């Protein structure tokens, strides 16, 4: 456990140390120190995951906190490994990405907050004391806020950052209420003591779980609390978006999983509700992703989708717990937790590729890109691998977790309850729809960006691929996606161990079903290896045999042979048949300037699709808020005496109220 604290302290200090050095060395020193810190943190996690004992460290702050304990159990160990590996790769990538920004004055603070975010996430997933947990949580939110507003001279970046800050504080409010309720009942801040309170009282557990779900769900990005995500991710620099989307939002999932372990057996209503919200989240996320043409916004919406898929896995697991079906619980939780890992791998890969494209083309709008596979072949292939993986297609890692979740759902049909069967059918068809819509979305994104002809100067002027220091972390992530896809049995084995540790006391016969997913994974592994081998062989043969038999010519234009880059299909037109089918689910904002007069000059057409929740719920709420608060403008006199008077009145009210109530 000492290693762990050394690691965290190294991370916390690394930013300050890096800033001492000259401009060129800063990021290099930072990545060195972060790798040292990550290794120190990862060692105990690996020990726990492979060994059989949890690591515990206790600190006694008896006056305020009580006993503060940091525990690494298999669940924490799993999250620690995800956080350290993914963050480390992002930090190495930032060496290349930050190069054009080294003269910005925000760079020093950026380098301080980046490792601080990593350290606080590591603290969050191990801390077992509610008060300390909240402090670490808040450090995490604030440090990521400062990372988001890196380019704070841009107005929309600042706006997105403030939106993020507000959402995070609403979320932490709910977490505080949930924790406060539990600690009042149990008389202590320790998670262990919460267990007893929650497991004896179902209605209390329901209320606490709902509060905690709103809090953690906002961080994770469940619909309807997702609104900060599509703004904050595009605003942040790419390596930060990678960490935030790949890792940080997973701390919300961690919180939810921790709550489930505390509750033990969730009630029927909670399991149903959670599953339903997850399905809606994943559908909502992918639906809006299709409408987006800003690459990073598109990826942010896909984060919502994938958090939904993780949620479907956890929801199925909860159904299994509720109805005492060990296999369903095992499959659901294994699939959900494995998807946490998988999503962090391919989402980070995609965000880093997006950054690589942004650095070269200076735009995030995919409509004006095109043909980049010729100038940036490595980035293109890596993005393609990431796209296939995120669609959940074999032989990549996304498929493995989605397969487990599907398997859990099909097995869940054995629970003979009318409502649960209907819900599972909703989830199965929802997940199938999500999968195919993801195919639509990513075939769009990949082909518009990288294939065809360049649609603008931005894409035309790119000559070289990004630097190696950016491409290597991406390559490592791509290898991870393939490795998990073709050797799933090992990863599933570890994740199964995590699940087993969490729920073995709550479920009987857990041991008997343990081997089922592993056996199936062995078959799938064989299948995937054969598939990869076959495809590689065939590609090799094809390229070999067709050499010299190819004649190059223009694209067939149906008789018209002066096709140019403006005649290509665009992202909007690609998505349009699908979107026209689902018309009522969007709010379309048109911005049209029609050609006028006899010799028309300028004309333009712009279609913008607004998030339906933002348009019909959040904006009216904000309007109301503005109107309501404007009533108090009179109080803001600018006169110091009257401000002191307000304070006095407030104090008086508090004193009088405490006399009566206390």
């Amino acid at each position, binding site marked *: 456990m000492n290693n762990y604290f050394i690691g965290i302290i190294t991370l916390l200090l690394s930013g300050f140390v890096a800033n001492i050095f000259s401009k060129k060395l800063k990021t290099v020193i930072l990545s060195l120190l972060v790798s040292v810190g990550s290794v120190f943190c990862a060692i105990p996690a690996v020990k726990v995951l492979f060994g059989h004992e949890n690591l515990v460290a206790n600190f006694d702050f008896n006056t305020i906190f009580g006993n503060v304990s940091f525990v690494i159990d298999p669940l924490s160990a799993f999250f620690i490994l995800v956080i350290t590996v993914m963050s480390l790769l992002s930090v190495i990538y930032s060496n290349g990405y930050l190069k054009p920004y080294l003269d910005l004055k925000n760079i020093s603070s950026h380098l301080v907050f980046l490792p601080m975010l990593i350290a606080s996430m590591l603290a969050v997933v191990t801390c077992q004391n509610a008060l300390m947990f909240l402090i670490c949580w808040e450090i995490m939110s604030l440090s990521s806020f400062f990372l988001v507003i890196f380019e704070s001279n841009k107005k929309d970046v600042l706006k997105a950052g403030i939106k993020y800050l507000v959402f995070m504080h609403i979320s932490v409010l709910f977490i505080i209420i949930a924790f406060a309720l539990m600690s009042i009942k149990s008389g202590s801040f320790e998670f262990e003591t919460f267990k007893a309170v929650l497991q004896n009282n179902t209605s209390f557990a329901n209320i606490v779980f709902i509060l905690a779900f709103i809090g953690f769900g906002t961080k994770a990005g469940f619909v309807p609390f997702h609104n900060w995500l599509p703004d904050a991710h595009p605003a942040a620099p790419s390596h930060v978006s990678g960490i935030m989307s790949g890792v940080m939002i997973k701390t919300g999932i961690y919180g939810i999983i921790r709550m489930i372990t505390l509750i033990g057996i969730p009630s029927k209503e909670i399991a149903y509700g959670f599953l339903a919200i997850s399905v809606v989240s994943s559908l909502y996320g992918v639906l809006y992703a299709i409408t987006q043409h800003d690459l990073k916004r598109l990826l942010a919406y896909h984060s919502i989708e994938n958090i939904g898929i993780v949620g479907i896995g956890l929801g199925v697991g909860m159904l299994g717990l509720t109805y005492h079906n060990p296999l369903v619980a095992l499959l659901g939780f294994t699939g959900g937790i494995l998807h946490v890992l998988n999503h962090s791998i391919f989402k980070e890969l995609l965000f880093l590729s997006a950054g690589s494209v942004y650095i070269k083309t200076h735009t995030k709008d995919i409509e004006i890109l095109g*043909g980049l*596979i*010729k100038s940036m072949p490595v980035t293109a292939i890596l993005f*393609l691998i990431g796209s*296939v993986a995120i669609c*959940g*297609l*074999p032989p990549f890692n996304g*498929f493995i977790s*989605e*397969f487990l979740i*599907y*398997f859990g759902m*099909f*097995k869940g*049909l054995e629970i*003979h309850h*009318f409502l649960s*069967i*209907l819900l599972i*059918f909703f989830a199965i*068809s929802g997940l*199938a*729809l999500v999968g*195919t819509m993801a*195919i*639509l979305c990513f*075939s769009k994104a990949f*082909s518009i960006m*990288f*294939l*065809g*002809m360049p649609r603008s100067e931005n894409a035309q002027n790119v000559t070289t691929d990004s630097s190696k220091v950016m491409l290597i972390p991406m390559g490592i992530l791509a290898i991870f996606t393939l490795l998990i896809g073709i050797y799933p049995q090992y990863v599933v084995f570890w994740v199964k161990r995590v699940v087993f540790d969490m729920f073995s006391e709550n479920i009987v016969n857990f041991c008997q079903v343990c081997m089922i997913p592993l056996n199936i994974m062995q078959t*799938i592994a064989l*299948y995937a290896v054969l*598939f990869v081998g076959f*495809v590689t062989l*065939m*590609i090799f043969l*094809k*390229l070999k045999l*067709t050499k010299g038999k*190819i*004649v*190059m*010519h*223009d*694209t*067939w*234009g149906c008789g018209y042979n002066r*096709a140019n880059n403006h005649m*290509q*299909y665009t992202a909007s*037109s*690609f*998505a*349009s*048949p*699908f979107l026209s*089918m689902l018309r009522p689910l969007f709010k379309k904002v048109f911005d049209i300037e029609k050609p006028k007069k006899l010799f028309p000059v300028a004309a333009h057409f712009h279609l913008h699709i607004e998030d339906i929740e933002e348009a019909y719920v959040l904006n009216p709420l904000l309007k109301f808020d503005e109107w309501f608060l404007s009533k108090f403008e009179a109080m803001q006199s600018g006169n110091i005496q009257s401000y002191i008077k307000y304070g006095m009145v407030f104090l008086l009210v508090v004193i009088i109220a405490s006399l009566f109530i206390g």
Partner: protein
Amino acid sequence: MIMTIVNLIILLFVPFLMLGLIKKTKSFWAGRKGPSIFQPLYDFIRLIKKDFVISKTTSVVFNIAPVFAISTVLFAAMFVPLATGSAIISIPVGVIVFSYTLGLGKFMSIVAAMDTGSSFEGMGASREACFTSIVEPAFFILIASVMLLTGNYTFDSLSHIISNAGSYGILITIFAVVVLFIMILTEGSRVPVDDPATHLELTMIHEVMILDNSGSDLAIYSWANGIKMLLISSLIACMVIPHHLPVLMHVLCYLSVLGIVSIAIGTVESGMARIRMSHVFEFIFVMSSLALVVLSLVMARMFGG
């Protein structure tokens, strides 16, 4: 081993015969003699020998996509009970691996179509992506309903419907066959969803996606498409053929089911025109609603006393 070889031969060669039979049926209804039933096979051989013309705009993606098209259908076929009534790999929820493997092929063919930079091919790719997204959920609802009814999670469950549910089973089978038939029309890009014989690029889906492919690439795409149709027809065969027949009998029944499906496709193509593009959704949604009917039949059987 012999069974595997029989299955493999049927898997690789019967798709051509199915395409030939469809053409023959269409000729019959049109009062023509029509080409030989082996014509698609001759076409295939002729195309394989030819050189390619490839667009200058394309990249390596365009070049390797046909490989994915053929390997995904061949690997997906491992999960489907073919002529001899048993699949090579039979694992629970193999249906997921089956349709996600096909999904990979679809992804690559969409991306390859976009690679040419032609707006016609973009149009086809976009429609293909769009229609698939409605087909898949309906297919999953159907399969899950059948699995719920039979309590068996492999594709074998399809052959247990009637033995498990009696007269209910016959009703369910009828609806399920219609769902799968619509799926063949959509996935195989046949009339009324798509017209493989049309000469107007604006109204095509699958054909327009491979507009720039020539030579063996083109041959492989149409072969893969035929195999895909055969796979879905095999699911129909699996449902209607009683599952403890002797092997030889089973193979014969299987082939005749494939024949009937091809004739049915040919008849539908002769009997109706292609639906207007904006109404294709409605046609495919018929599939979803019928799948829901199957689900409600299963639920009625389980909870309806």
